């Protein structure tokens, strides 16, 4: 029967190498049998084995009742096995827990001191709210147990009780506090209390201020470092509430920092000073300055100390906390912090990276980024992206208890392992991604506030493309900045591309450089340079590069080469992602337009015609296969542009050239013009307004004009019109075919010029003066004054004049009428209709790179100086365009506020972390000095409330009773009048009454009154109508209401008659419900 004990199981496990699974299954079967045995010894042994196997992931929840049996064993040895099993295997849904309650109570009151320890250790693991209250009465007396060991465990157990049921802390806290204040208490009990108070403290620091003197005493008394650390941590939450503490704490903390041999205590002192805001609070005083200097020098020393990476790690954590308030102090130690970026340990690197991101300013940005870049360059990519599925055992079936592989090693006592390499591992891809993301974040922070050299930045971006990890990995390696990077595209190369594009759009001055960079990226002969591996690592950047090349084609150093590169990519189209290809397709006609119109005044010679035709032919050749591309976007664009190109080819072919004219003997003075399709129509497709960055929230801020009903059909007779149009279409296709006309009739030049007008003008009048101003918009901010309000005002007036008769133009002034110009009104007005489309009115702020005021003069890009580096060039950076007002969302940080909004939304549905013990219940529980009084008050209040509720209930019941009686009386009055059967009514009433009792009280009088009315008039008028209904419901109601009816003795005798007379019933409104 009894197979093996725990040692035999373990030994057996070790000797069954290779078939452990089988062995375990066998053992589990054995355990199942043994645990049912009557012999408690066998039971306990089986349980012990189960607990051991549970550690390896073999569920033992099925044995929970047996656990309880063993727990209740009178023998201590068995009991403790049971308790261990309960701790290890009970889950929140374990049902036998309810049965355990009495056992726990009994063991808590056991005379045996050792036995008391068992429930004390187990309760924190199994406690739930319903148990907490009943166990409390047994736990509190344990606080004064003679053994310190039991006292301190009781304190902690009480704390866990309070976590699940905060009210339990109210009676327990005064006793715990007494223990803490008792100077003769065992020091280890005091330490345990301090631990608990520290856990409680950050939730409600104000309640613990009164303990400050005692805690201070304990801190200065010294002795227990662990406790001192906890006290300091507690104080760091108290100091913000009690500024006087700062002065008191400074001397002891300083002396601890100077004297303690324990590094942990030293560190926590510094940490406490930082977190408690002591540094800020004491700023200016000599002590404060001294302590700040002391802290930073100690932290610095921790960073440079040899051989202890832990200190480096925690020092970086501390530095990170200081940066938010004292960034300049931290950047003084930039040198040592930057060393940590290259630390061999990835944990340290990540911390350093986090820190550095917060630390950068205009001066150190380049240094830091160069350093990170160098790291990326030199580290080399991870040899092969380590497949997480092979390495991460977490994704499959957990740990199989294997036979131990070599016992020698296991018996070897502890010596450092040498076999592990001490060199830096190759950078894992996620870290690499994370670094790239951070670089982008640092550089682009606050719309490039720290960026002083955009040419350099473009170089960095191009460099980053090479460093993109070959497999798309999401970053955030061990990062705390996860939310910040959440909105980014999944692939980091996308992010790099987006940055490149962002710079190109925002910083006009470096557009040529950006275009050149795009050309480099696109150029096919340099492809292996940038995208060495076959993986699609950096390729996503090509989409942005192609867009830049297309959009700013006129700035490209060699547009033709770019076009060639794009066209040659057809050789490798299979490798290009569809999104990249789509971007290529979009860029092609733009490039084409630039190439064909490069010299608008050049005569249309046959040479030119031939080159144009050749160009078209090449593009067509490229496009043709793509019309069958599986990606719909690519396919659509290919089809569209293919047709456009064919039209262009036709136009070019049919257009007479100079030479033709001459040979045809035309007038020699006449120079043939290139086809307008090429010079005007196609370019105008792509040259509209300047593309400007638009804030995330801008669209949302466009106010809906008054009187605009989006739901209303624009034209009520749309259907009719459509039908008419159908008819119309058939007979007048020629006149209607404007497209045909446009292409084949020689247009007058004004047609092309006017082509883009309406839409463009609505948004931005192409007056050159205003345009340059709008383009130079560098920063805008909801708070800043418009640069030139008057000018804008004037322009607005002009525009109003111009559009006075335009029905599509909604005038803000006109719309908002003549109400008083209060500030609110101004806000409303500024956010109302027409003006919103006025780009010029967006406030313009100059970019201030230095404190000096630099006029934001647009700098004409010239090809000559773009290679030259200037020490300080001032770039204008176009801020996001948005609309003022409407929303109080600051435009620049719109994405940030968006994300914060998202988090605010998410907070409600926040999923607690896996191991989290929720203590939020405690935050509502007050324990402060007058806790006793207050708790008394609230207690009384509770009682009062309950009493009030009960009274109300009683009153309601009385009321119901009264109404019932009234109705009965009323009915009795009715009865003699008409010879109506009261029986049916009685039944009805009963139903009503029953229902009312459970119903809310407020309905009662009304419902009762209604019933009364029905009772009166129903007898005369309504009865016939309702009879039918009544018959249907009758059967059920009789059956269900019989018992209720029986209770009312007086009615019982008449009951049988009911059925017979039912047809004359007059009131049934509630019965059938």
């Amino acid at each position: 029967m009894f197979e093996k004990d725990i040692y035999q199981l373990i030994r057996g496990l070790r000797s069954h190498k290779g078939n452990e699974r089988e062995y375990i299954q066998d053992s589990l079967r054995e355990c199942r049998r043994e645990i049912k045995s009557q012999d408690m010894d066998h039971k306990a042994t089986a349980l012990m084995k189960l607990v051991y196997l549970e550690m390896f992931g073999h569920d033992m929840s099925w044995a929970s009742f047996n656990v309880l049996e063993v727990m209740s064993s009178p023998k201590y040895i068995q009991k403790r096995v049971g308790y261990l099993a309960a701790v290890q295997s009970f889950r929140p849904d374990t049902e036998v827990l309810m049965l355990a309650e009495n056992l726990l109570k009994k063991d808590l009151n056991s005379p045996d001191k050792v036995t008391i320890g068992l429930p004390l250790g187990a309760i924190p693991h199994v406690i739930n709210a319903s148990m907490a209250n009943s166990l409390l009465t047994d736990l509190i007396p344990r606080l004064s147990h003679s053994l310190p060991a039991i006292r301190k465990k009781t304190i902690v157990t009480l704390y866990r009780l309070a976590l699940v049921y905060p009210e339990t802390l109210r009676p327990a806290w005064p006793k715990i506090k007494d223990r803490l204040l008792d100077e003769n208490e065992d020091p280890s009990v005091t330490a345990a209390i301090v631990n608990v108070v520290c856990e409680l403290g950050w939730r409600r620091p104000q309640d613990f201020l009164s303990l400050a003197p005692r805690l201070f005493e304990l801190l200065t008394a010294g002795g227990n470092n662990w406790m001192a650390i906890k006290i300091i941590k507690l104080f760091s939450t108290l100091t913000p509430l009690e500024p006087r503490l700062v002065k008191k704490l400074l001397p002891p903390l300083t002396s601890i920092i100077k004297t303690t041999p324990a590094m942990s205590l030293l560190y926590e002192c510094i940490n406490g000073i930082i977190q408690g805001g002591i540094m800020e609070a004491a700023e200016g005083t000599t002590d404060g300055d001294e302590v700040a200097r002391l802290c930073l020098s100690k932290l610095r020393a921790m960073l440079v100390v040899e051989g202890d990476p832990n200190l480096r790690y925690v020092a970086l954590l501390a530095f990170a906390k200081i940066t938010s308030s004292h960034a300049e102090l931290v950047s003084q130690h930039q040198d040592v912090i930057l060393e940590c970026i290259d630390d061999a340990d990835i944990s340290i690197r990540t911390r350093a990276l986090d820190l550095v991101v917060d630390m950068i300013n205009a001066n150190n940005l380049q240094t830091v980024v160069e350093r990170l870049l160098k790291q990326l360059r030199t580290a080399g990519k991870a040899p092969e992206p380590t497949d997480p599925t092979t390495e991460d055992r977490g994704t499959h079936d957990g740990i199989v208890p294997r036979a131990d592989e070599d016992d020698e090693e296991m018996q070897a006592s502890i010596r450092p392992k040498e076999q592990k390499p001490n060199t830096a591992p190759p950078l894992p891809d996620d870290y690499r991604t994370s670094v790239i993301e951070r670089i982008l974040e640092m550089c682009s922070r606050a719309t490039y506030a720290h960026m002083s050299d955009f040419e350099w930045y473009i170089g960095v971006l191009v460099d980053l493309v090479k460093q993109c990890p070959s497999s798309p990995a999401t970053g955030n390696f061990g990062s705390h900045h996860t939310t910040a990077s959440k909105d980014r595209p999944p692939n980091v190369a996308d992010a790099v591309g987006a940055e490149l594009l962002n710079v190109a759009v925002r910083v006009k001055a470096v557009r040529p450089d950006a275009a050149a960079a795009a050309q480099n990226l696109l150029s096919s002969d340099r492809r292996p340079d940038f995208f060495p591996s076959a993986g699609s690592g950096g390729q996503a950047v090509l989409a942005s590069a192609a867009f830049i090349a297309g959009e700013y084609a006129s700035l490209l150093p060699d547009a033709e080469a770019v076009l060639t590169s794009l066209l040659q990519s057809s050789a490798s189209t299979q490798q290009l992602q569809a999104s990249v290809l789509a971007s290529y397709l979009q860029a092609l006609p733009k490039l084409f337009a630039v190439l064909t119109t490069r010299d608008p005044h050049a005569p249309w010679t046959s040479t030119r015609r031939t080159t144009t035709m050749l160009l078209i032919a090449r593009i067509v050749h490229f496009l043709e296969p793509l019309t069958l591309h599986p990606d719909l976007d690519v396919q659509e664009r290919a089809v569209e542009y293919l047709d456009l190109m064919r039209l262009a080819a036709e136009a070019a072919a049919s257009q007479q050239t100079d030479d033709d004219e001459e040979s045809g003997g035309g007038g020699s003075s006449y120079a043939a013009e290139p086809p307008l399709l090429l010079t005007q129509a196609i370019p105008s497709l792509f040259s509209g307004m300047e593309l400007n960055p638009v804030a995330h929230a801008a669209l949302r801020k466009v106010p809906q004009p008054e009187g605009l009903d989006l739901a209303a059909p624009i034209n009520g007779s749309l259907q009719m019109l459509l039908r008419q149009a159908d008819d119309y279409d058939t007979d007048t296709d020629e006149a209607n075919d404007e497209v045909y006309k446009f292409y084949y009739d020689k247009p007058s030049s004004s047609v092309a010029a006017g082509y883009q007008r309406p839409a463009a003008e609505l948004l931005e009048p192409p007056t050159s003066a205003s345009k340059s101003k709008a383009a130079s918009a560098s920063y805008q901010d909801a708070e800043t004054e418009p640069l030139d309000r008057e000018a804008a005002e004037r322009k607005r007036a002009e525009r109003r004049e111009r559009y006075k008769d335009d029905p599509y133009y909604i005038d803000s002034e006109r719309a908002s009428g003549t109400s008083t110009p209060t500030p609110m009104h101004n806000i409303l007005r500024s956010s109302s209709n027409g003006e919103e489309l006025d780009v010029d009115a967006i406030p313009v702020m100059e970019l201030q790179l230095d404190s000096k005021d630099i006029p934001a003069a647009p700098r004409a890009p010239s090809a000559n100086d773009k290679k030259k580096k200037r020490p300080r060039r001032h770039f204008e950076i176009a801020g996001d365009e948005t609309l003022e007002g409407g929303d109080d969302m600051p435009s620049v940080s719109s994405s940030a506020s968006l994300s914060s909004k998202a988090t605010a939304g998410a907070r409600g549905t926040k999923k607690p972390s896996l191991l989290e013990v929720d203590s939020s219940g405690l935050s509502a529980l007050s324990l402060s000095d007058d806790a006793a009084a207050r708790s008394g008050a609230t207690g009384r209040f509770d009682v009062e409330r309950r009493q009030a509720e009960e009274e109300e209930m009683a009153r309601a019941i009385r009321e119901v009773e009264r109404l019932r009686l009234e109705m009965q009386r009323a009915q009795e009055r009715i009865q003699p009048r008409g010879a109506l059967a009261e029986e049916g009514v009685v039944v009805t009433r009963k139903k009503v009454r029953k229902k009312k009792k459970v119903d809310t009280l407020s309905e009662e009088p009304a419902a009762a009154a209604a019933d009364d009315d029905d009772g009166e008039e129903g007898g005369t008028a309504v009865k016939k109508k309702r009879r039918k209904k009544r018959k249907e419901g009758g059967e059920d109601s009789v059956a269900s209401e019989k018992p209720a009816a029986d209770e009312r003795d007086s009615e019982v005798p008449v009951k049988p008659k009911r059925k017979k007379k039912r047809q004359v019933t007059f009131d049934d409104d509630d019965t059938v419900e």
Partner: protein
Amino acid sequence: MINAVLVFNNNGQPRLTKFYTQLDTAVQQRLLSEIFTLVSARPNSACNFLPLPPLLAPSTSSSSSTAEQNDAPSLVTYRHYATLYFILISTSTESPLALLDLIQVFVESLDRLFENVCELDLIFNFETLHAVLGEMIVGGVVVETGLEKVVEGVKAQGRVAKRPVNEGRVGLTQGIWAGR
């Protein structure tokens, strides 16, 4: 507070698992293996703090107030002694360096109880291992950091460490402190 204490060997086989919240066995195992993956990849020269394993990583959408973060486990501290890894998962209210000392006290107590402890001792006496932990941490709160008192407390429970019979004990000298 401390959310979990884990001990496993160089192969990731658990020797002690203690979670101060009730957790499904399967989830426990996943967490264990995630941490093992992280910890086993670290060179000895690395520091003793791990990035959060994926299971514990804060759900990205919820970076809520610091108050709530104090409840969530945010610190994974480990120490490596010969064949064993000792891991503490804790919230930010604990001091990282102090936790390292706590592990040290834990191991020292074991060493005191077993006289030159090795992994085999812990395998065969995992009940004692639990008892030692129970003397130091109750419900996630540290109740004792003094070596003497821990040892005393365990001995008072009558859990005399039993050496497995027939198991050879080779080369257990040098003490557990040769590691870090």
